[in-house]
Each structure stands twice: as structure tokens, then as C-alpha cells.
């Protein structure tokens, strides 16, 4: 991607959390960029480090968590060096975040209008009356009927879909360059999910905002993303355009995910679905083998020889696997083998 359109650039991001007797490393050397007007999806299952990555970029991790990175840039400004004061200026102004559950993200004690105006008074130094006008404008823009009345209501008076629209309106108040949306539709019904995703997409096209979408739902990704960053065990295991990754996943983990999802009209009723055996390992210590080796049906001796690095695959894609990229040596039947006695054995440590 040409550097002039790049909004966010993350390079070698690490998060370390000290716990009694060990240091957890839930995010290890994560790198990716988000361009202007681009949607990048970070996907992975629970515990893969995707939400921590988002919080680290927002500078929202608790103090005991150590964030190290080779580079963490918003436009050309380095975020690692930013002071607490500078962070407060950036958050909500240049970078905005939409959280999963709008009920816990909105303050139940304040009216919608107060919560929205506060952002404008803080960041844009607007007068109260201008702030109200702008808030009404944005509520209307995100498709909330009767916005003037909504301003006077409390969060509990709104439905889940409306609350998430309010969250989106709040994120847009200061015209940010980057929006981080962490599972923005997971708490919503499928019909409302489609509405909210369309709204996000339309607004992004109109304003050319960079969107970092954190989700576990590959269906959402397929509908929204330009590029996909697949995370597993705190590491990036595959990067590519949305269509590339979904049509021909290179990393066995991505392949397992794609094969495990039933799709009406494609998979037949009762057809055996693929699955990934085992559980996500704990992120302790340095990796001395491929992080996925314990769950990978293609695993071989060479996979245990040392940590695997992210390498260039065909068509500008990246993957963290030693298997050939042309798919040779892979028999998809391995994903459908009957479950053995210890397929889902107890948690293993990341340090093997």
C-alpha cells in the first residue's frame, strides 16, 4: 500500500501481562496497516489476542500490561511516545472506538445528548448549542428517527440496535480518521446486524475513514472487509485480501475455520462439518515450535523444529506456516476425521 494513504501502521506489537509466577504474552509481534477508506478485519477465536490488539492501539490497556512495539503510528505520529494528555486528545478525536455491547459502553446515568455533547465540548471546543445541533445531525445520519427527542432519553430507553447506532454516531462526532469496531454486531439480531453493517459501510465509503473491524464472524468479514488479518495464539498467521483468504485459505487454522462453518445452500443437512481439535494454548513464554502445531492435522516433525516466521506467499499474501502454498501435501479429509479420545485434551502450554 502506498505510504501516503496509510492511516494506521502497527509493527511488531507485543503485549505482556505479568501474572503470579509467569508473564502472559497474549499479543506477539503483530504487524498490519490500515489505509484511508480501507476496512481491515482482524479475525480469530476467543483468546487469540484480537481485542487486546485493539485496546493496545487505543492505549486503553491497564497499566500493568506492557505494550512494546517497533512502530505504532497514526499518520506520521508515533503513539508509543504519546503522553497521557496527547492520548486524551487523540481518543475520540482522531481514533474512535465502537464496542461490542452498547449497553455497557454508554453511561446509564446520563442522557444520550449529554454524552454526545461532552465529546464535542472537549475535543472540538464547540458551544453547547452548536454541539446539540451537530449531535442531532449525526443521530439523523445514522438513521435514528426523531433525533431531537432521543437526545433527551437515557440509554435504557433505547433498543439494542438504536444504542449501537448511537455508538456509531458518537464515534463519528469529531470526524475521526480511524474507527476501531470491536465485534460491533455480536450482541444484535441478524436482521439488525445487517442494518448496522450497511450503515458502517455506507458511512465509511462517504467519509473515507479507515475501519479496523475486530470480529470472530467470518460472515461479517466476507460482507465488509477489504483485507483480513487472521490471528491465532497472539500471532498473525495469515494476511491477504478478503476474497483470497476466504476462497483459498493458506494457513491450516484459517482453513479449519472456513471448513467448520455450515452454510445454508452449500453444506447439506447433517453433513459432517470440519473441526479444529484441541483448545487454544496459554500464551506463556517464547514459542519454540509453530503455535498451532498441537491442533494442526497437517503437523509434521519439521513444525516442531522451531518457531515459524511470517513469510511471503503468492499474490502479496503472508502466512505463518511451513507447508507449500500451492496446497500440495494437504488432504482436506483430515478435517473430518472422527474425534479421538484426547482430541480436546487439557490445556497445553505455549512453550512446548
Amino acid at each position, binding site marked *: 500500500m502506498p505510504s501516503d494513504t496509510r492511516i494506521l501502521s502497527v509493527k511488531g506489537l507485543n503485549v505482556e501481562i505479568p501474572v503470579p509466577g509467569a508473564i502472559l504474552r497474549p499479543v506477539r509481534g503483530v504487524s498490519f496497516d490500515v489505509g484511508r477508506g480501507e476496512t481491515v478485519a482482524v479475525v480469530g*477465536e*476467543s483468546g487469540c489476542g484480537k481485542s487486546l490488539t485493539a485496546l493496545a492501539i487505543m492505549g486503553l490497556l491497564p497499566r500493568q500490561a506492557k505494550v512494546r512495539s517497533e512502530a505504532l503510528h497514526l499518520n506520521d505520529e508515533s503513539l508509543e511516545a504519546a503522553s497521557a494528555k496527547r492520548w486524551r486528545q487523540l481518543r475520540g478525536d482522531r481514533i474512535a472506538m465502537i464496542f461490542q455491547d452498547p449497553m455497557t459502553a454508554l453511561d446509564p446515568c446520563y442522557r444520550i445528548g449529554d454524552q454526545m455533547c461532552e465529546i464535542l465540548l472537549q475535543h472540538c471546543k464547540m458551544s453547547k448549542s452548536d454541539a446539540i445541533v451537530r449531535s442531532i445531525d449525526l443521530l439523523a445520519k445514522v438513521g435514528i428517527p426523531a433525533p431531537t427527542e432521543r437526545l433527551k432519553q437515557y440509554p435504557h430507553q433505547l*433498543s439494542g*440496535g*438504536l444504542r449501537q447506532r448511537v455508538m456509531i454516531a458518537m464515534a463519528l462526532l469529531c470526524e475521526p480518521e480511524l474507527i476501531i469496531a470491536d465485534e460491533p454486531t455480536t450482541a444484535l*439480531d*441478524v*436482521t*439488525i*446486524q*445487517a*442494518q448496522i*453493517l*450497511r450503515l458502517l*459501510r455506507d458511512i465509511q465509503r462517504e467519509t473515507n475513514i479507515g475501519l479496523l473491524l475486530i470480529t*470472530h*464472524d*467470518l*460472515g*461479517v*468479514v*466476507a*460482507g*465488509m472487509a477489504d483485507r483480513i488479518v487472521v490471528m491465532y495464539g497472539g500471532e498473525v498467521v495469515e494476511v491477504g485480501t*478478503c*476474497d*483470497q483468504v*476466504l*476462497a483459498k485459505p493458506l494457513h491450516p487454522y484459517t482453513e*479449519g*475455520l*472456513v471448513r*467448520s*462453518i*455450515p*452454510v*445454508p*445452500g*452449500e*453444506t447439506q*443437512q*447433517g*453433513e*459432517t*462439518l*470440519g*473441526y*479444529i481439535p484441541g*483448545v487454544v494454548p496459554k500464551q506463556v513464554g517464547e514459542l519454540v515450535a509453530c503455535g498451532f502445531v498441537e491442533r494442526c492435522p497437517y503437523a509434521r516433525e519439521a513444525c516442531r523444529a522451531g518457531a515459524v516466521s511470517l513469510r511471503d506467499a503468492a499474490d502479496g499474501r503472508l502466512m505463518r506456516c511451513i507447508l507449500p502454498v500451492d496446497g500440495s501435501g494437504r488432504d482436506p479429509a483430515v478435517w473430518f476425521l472422527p*474425534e479421538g*479420545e*484426547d*482430541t*480436546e*485434551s*487439557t*490445556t497445553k502450554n505455549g512453550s512446548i
Partner: protein
Amino acid sequence: MAEVLSMRGVTRDYSVGGSFAKKQTLRALRGIDLGVEKGRTLGLVGESGCGKSTLARILLGVETPSAGEVLVGGKPIESYDRIERARLIQPVFQDPYSSLNPRMTVEAIIAAPMRVRGERGRSLQTKVRELAGEVGLPRHLVEAYPSQLSGGQRQRVAIARALIGEPEILICDEPTSALDVSVQSQILNLLHNLKSQLDLTMILISHNLAVVHHLADEVAVMYLGQIVERGPSREIFEKASHPYSEALLKAVLPPRAGARLPEKALEAEFPSPVNPPSGCTFHPRCPKAQALCAQQMPEKSGTEHIYRCHFPNN
């Protein structure tokens, strides 16, 4: 074939409000007619608030209908006492983190329904271990506590507990929505195998249409306490008659390259069940609504494949 489970005109009202707000009636279910044949799986779908969980609670006997009757094996559900009812109908709940007692071992959890019936001793222990193996729990985990288990393993324990008493009917309320997709597929495979092995009758409640498509033989679509369409799974997924079923199907996002967001999503939000819209309750959101829809509730049409709509898709 005989219906193991049938509901006739089941209605459930709740009284909401009081103290500060005005007292109002919330009609969670309005005249549900439903029947499930032995060995079949019925998928219940609809948005949150449509009454699918109330329906499950009535089937489990923890809630009684305000009107109408529920027949299990041809007899009214009230004619069974609690233990008999539990022998016939067992639930699997959504969240295996809260549905297992954290202070009991896996073995004790699975054995609990049998102990209630007075079974004890070695034969019970053997039975528990056999069943644990059948649902795919590693042998060494039988003595573990729920906190030592992953989400998928916990759901297997919940399934084993439901199955130990050899129930006729299994009621699964969102059995996989708390699980990761790679684990969800394992539980779906397991449920499908158990269903064919044990000839189980299953009610599968889910908002995930892909899950329903995968397991259900028949599908009932609920909207605001009513079944708006019901028929063989294949027919509903291939040619839904009711515009609401169609909208739900269109909202499914397949994880495939080139898939795009649905161009026309269902507008507006789910109405309040306290004061539902007039006529067909779906008309304010319906793309095909006409004047008639606001005035008159459509009657049921069809026999095998039933729908409630004045202007069905054909």
C-alpha cells in the same frame, strides 16, 4: 406418525409494569399450534423477543400457558409429575458456563438426574462413564470440575446430563451460540449423530439459521409470539412464503469470497410485544405490505407448509 409433542392454541400472557408504570399485558405467545413427530427435529427461529424462549420454558414445564394445551405423548403435560416430566423432556441450555454447578464433578453432574430417581452405585457409574465417552469427553475429565473444562467440553457434559435418563424429547436453546465456530461444528456433529443413533425428538431454538439448516427437519419461524411460517426445512430455505422468513434468510452472511452485505435489509426494529401493530403484526416492516395488512390478521394457509400472509411469495 404420531406426534410426541403437540401444542394447541398455546397463549402466554405476562403482566408488566405496576408500582410506577401502568400495568399492561404482554402477550408473549399468541395461539401457538405446533406438533413434532417422533425422531424429528424442529428448528424454531426468530429475533429476540419473539417468544421462542417462553415456548421452550412452557415445553419444559417451568412455565404454564395462560390458555391452550400442551400434549406430551398424547396426554396433557400437567398430568405428569415433575420426575415423570423430567424423564420425558430434557433441556440443553445456551451457556455451559452457567448451566453446570461449579462445585460438582463432571461425573456427579451427569449422574444427577438418575440420583434424583433413586439410582445409585456401580451400575450408575458405568453408565455415566459410557455416556461421557459417547459424547466425546476424554476419560480423564470425568473426575474434573467444570472450571477445568473448555466451553466445548462443558457443552458435552450438559448434553450427557440431558441424555442419561433416555428422554424422548431434547430441547436445545441456542446450544452453540456461546461457543467458538471451530467448537460449534463439533457440537453440531455430535448432536446430529446422537439424533440419528437414539431416534431423539429435538426442538432446536436458534437465531443462527445456518445451525437450524444443519440440524432441523422442519422449521417454524416466529414473529411476535406467533408462528408465521412452518414447513419442511428444505422448502423454507429454498422458497420461503412469508416475507419475514425471506428477510431472515437474506440476513445470513455466508463466509465466502465475493459474498456481499444484503442489499435490502429489513428496515425498522422489532415492535414492542406490549402494544403490537394492528392486523398482521409484521406489516410495519414488511416490504410488500398493503392496506389490508394493517387491518386484518391473515389466516393460516397451506397444509404441509403453513404460512400466515395475505401476499405470500410464490
